[in-house]
């Protein structure tokens, strides 16, 4: 890892530029706030970009109803502190049908409660741009993603037909029904995110920090039983382990890692030694090309 962090200034300026472009060219842009570390950085950058004014965006959280309780508590606390307007959207139809990760599996749950729900929310509120914290280094298909990325009226991504993106001239022009996903953090890595969180002292969900937690082992993952909906299988026994989460999503689909990193500098040190990829603990990404397929269908 770099001894100096001068590159963070470059990345910060690039992200602020993208956020200001989104504010200037779209009629109704929204920040997709998913409560994780990338969203926390994105929100912090939005506060910086428009200072002394407030960020001219609404915030949208697509709630699958299976997020960690600590995530929801953190979300509500931050919104109250910052006084920002938050729209929470749940796919009510999916909820009524009882769709969940345990009963229907990761793929169906993600499709209906995340991808479908996101499309519903964008249509319902007429957002013409959705600003997200996705990074190109997260997954190979994301490496080809634009900073201003076009979606069809059906919210589909056409990876073969993307608009060329030259210099910093983002093309935000839309035909009726089309929208743009904006990714200001495209060029950041996981390590950049944490060194920036440290430098800027940005609050994040405590689940990122190691603590003694009761977890079970299932399908090779350490799962935190966040509520009673997750029933124990025969011979499954919760055990106390020092763990933390590298990414946060729906709790039954998100594996913890053994870790003693209880502060940001320890996380940075841990990442510098890490031998596994960031999203390795996410069930929904597994399978060849699965993220690309999800993205084509409209997933963030």
């Amino acid at each position, binding site marked *: 890892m770099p*001894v100096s962090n*001068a*590159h963070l200034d470059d990345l910060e*300026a690039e992200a602020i530029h993208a956020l*200001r472009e989104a504010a200037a060219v779209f009629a109704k842009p929204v920040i997709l706030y998913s409560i994780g570390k990338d969203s926390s950085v994105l929100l912090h950058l939005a506060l910086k970009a428009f200072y002394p004014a407030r960020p001219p965006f609404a915030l949208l959280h697509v709630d699958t109803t299976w997020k960690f309780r600590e995530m929801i508590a953190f979300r509500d606390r931050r919104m109250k502190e910052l006084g920002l307007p938050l729209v929470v959207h749940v796919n009510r139809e999916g909820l009524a049908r009882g769709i969940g990760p345990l009963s229907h599996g990761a793929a169906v749950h993600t499709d209906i409660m995340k991808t479908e729900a996101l499309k519903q929310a964008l249509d319902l509120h007429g957002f013409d741009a959705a600003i997200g914290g996705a990074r190109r280094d997260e997954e190979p298909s994301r*490496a080809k993603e634009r900073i201003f990325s076009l979606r069809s009226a059906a919210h589909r991504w056409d990876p073969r037909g993307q608009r060329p993106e030259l210099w910093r001239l983002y093309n935000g022009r839309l035909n009726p029904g089309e929208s743009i996903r904006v990714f200001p953090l495209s060029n950041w890595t996981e390590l950049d995110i944490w060194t920036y969180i440290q430098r800027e002292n940005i609050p994040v969900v405590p689940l990122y920090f190691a603590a003694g937690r009761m977890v079970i082992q299932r399908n090779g993952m350490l799962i935190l039983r966040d509520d009673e909906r997750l029933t124990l299988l025969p011979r499954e026994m919760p055990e106390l382990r020092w763990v933390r989460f590298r990414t946060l999503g729906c709790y039954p689909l998100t594996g913890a890692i053994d870790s003693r990193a209880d502060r940001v500098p320890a996380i940075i040190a841990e990442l510098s030694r890490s031998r596994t*990829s960031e999203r390795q603990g996410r069930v929904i990404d597994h399978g060849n090309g699965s993220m690309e397929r999800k993205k084509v269908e409209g997933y963030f």
Partner: protein
Amino acid sequence: MDARPEGSLLRFITCGSVDDGKSTLIGRLLVDADVVPDDRRAGAADLASLVDGLQAEREQGITIDVGYRYFSTPRRRFIVADTPGHEQYTRNMATGASTADLAVILVDATKGVLPQTFRHSAIVGLMGIRRIVLAVNKMDLVGYREHCFTGIVEAYAAMAERLGLRDVAAIPLSALLGDNVMRPSAAMPWYRGPTLLGHLETVGAAPREGQPFRFAVQWINRDTGFRGYAGNVLGGSIQPGEEIVVLPSGTRTRVERLVTYDGDLDRAVAGQAVTLTLSGAVDVGRGDVISSASLPPHVSDQFAAHLVWLGDAPMLPGRPYHLRLGTATATATVSELKYRLDIDSGSHQAAKQLGPNDIGFANLSLDRALPFDTYDDNRETGGFILIDRLTNATVGAGMIRFPLRRAANLTWQDFTVDKAARATVKGHRPAILWFTGLSGSGKSTIADGVERRLTALGRHTYLLDGDNVRHGLNRDLGFTDVDRVENIRRVIETARLMADAGLIVLVSFISPFRAERQLARERLVGDAFLEIFVDTPLAECERRDPKGLYHKARLGELRNFTGFDSAYEPPDAPDLHLRTLEMTVDGEVDRIIEALQRRGVFD
């Protein structure tokens, strides 16, 4: 003097063909820099497959789109744009190069300098990358022999000189085995230079602070009692109290504060995102450039530029496009295509249009004057994109080479008798009836009926007919897409003069392209403009065939015939849609006369 602090960001691009081992080299850099996680590495068949991202690429074994990779060493953070080498993807190379500080050009040591090496280097030069690394790969396959390397270096030096690329560092390496990538090669003791990674860690990124101050206004920050201008410093530096000029208005004032979330700054330099406040009440909007008062940019509505064509549909001179330059938007047309650059030989070829992946040199004309620098002086204020006005796709990228000021010597002469005065004498307002439809659809018949009716009503008219105009004013034009665009442009200007004279102008032209009909509507704004779609199915037009043209087209004796081998783009929202199979000519004339009355052309 231009070395940036250690830990800074270096953006570079790799150029090479499918077989040069480009993906292998990037895979090698990622593995040597130790950024490839075990779980991802375990699933990769070889180094190259760590890099090829999209499913289609894995299936075809080629790289089809620009991909960005990230790695860092203790000394520096890198972003590498991996761009396809296949020739149909020139646009991807231009895209990757547009943000790069340095280019790594790969040459296969077993093959030497190839035509594509020239092509890649020419694009790199055109896109303003000054620093080149000539990476001679696959040295293991030529027995690590020095003379293989020096032969290639000499051949490339001649090429680089021709292209004006002066800063070239040549490194012999093997991406597959890792020689001279990060680890100095024991097999090539004759080479004493740095490894590739060693060179990339220490090379200076492009200096921008020595340039004159430039700042493109992105967003107006209005808060209680506060008005500031948010944007990035695009060149030079600025301090509170310095005099600036706002362009294109030319207003001069001083910078008051440099506002950021972390407190006001004493100085802001190129690359930084800040919010400026200015002294006094100044009218500043998005798209304006705030600049050094002593060294301002050019301000003009015309310039000469290199164009890289990215769109699938060809660039046609005279067709309007949206232009994005900095944060400003304007309408631009290519007023003259000087030549097409043959990227394989460097020669200039006469051309009437640019196809996908073509590079050309052209004069552009804008609908208003904008501030800009030449691309050599500042990439951020001298590079622009062109956007198709109908699809909104990004279709062109341009690098401004010099300003043109011909229009500055022509001023508009105002006369006493104006359009309104002429209309009063005529007893009706001017109007344009634009008939569009296939050959044989009935445009001329209906237009003739309308003109006879208007004349009987004592109205003053003129009919511009496609075939008739082609006998005189447009006799030098053929039927290619380029000539069709010019044909319509001249007719628009002629109709404009006639409307100015107070006439009701009937234009009966196939006018197959939406873009030109939209241009007509915009050029004739202020007049009553009716787009009339004479909608007759192709089969019916062919059955009628009043001029025998369909017959000829069927026999292959007529090329570029609309509806056959030349497209007709029907109007999406015409003012009048005449379905001729369902109506009589008299009924159609009635509807047009009624429409003119509704528009208040006459009572």
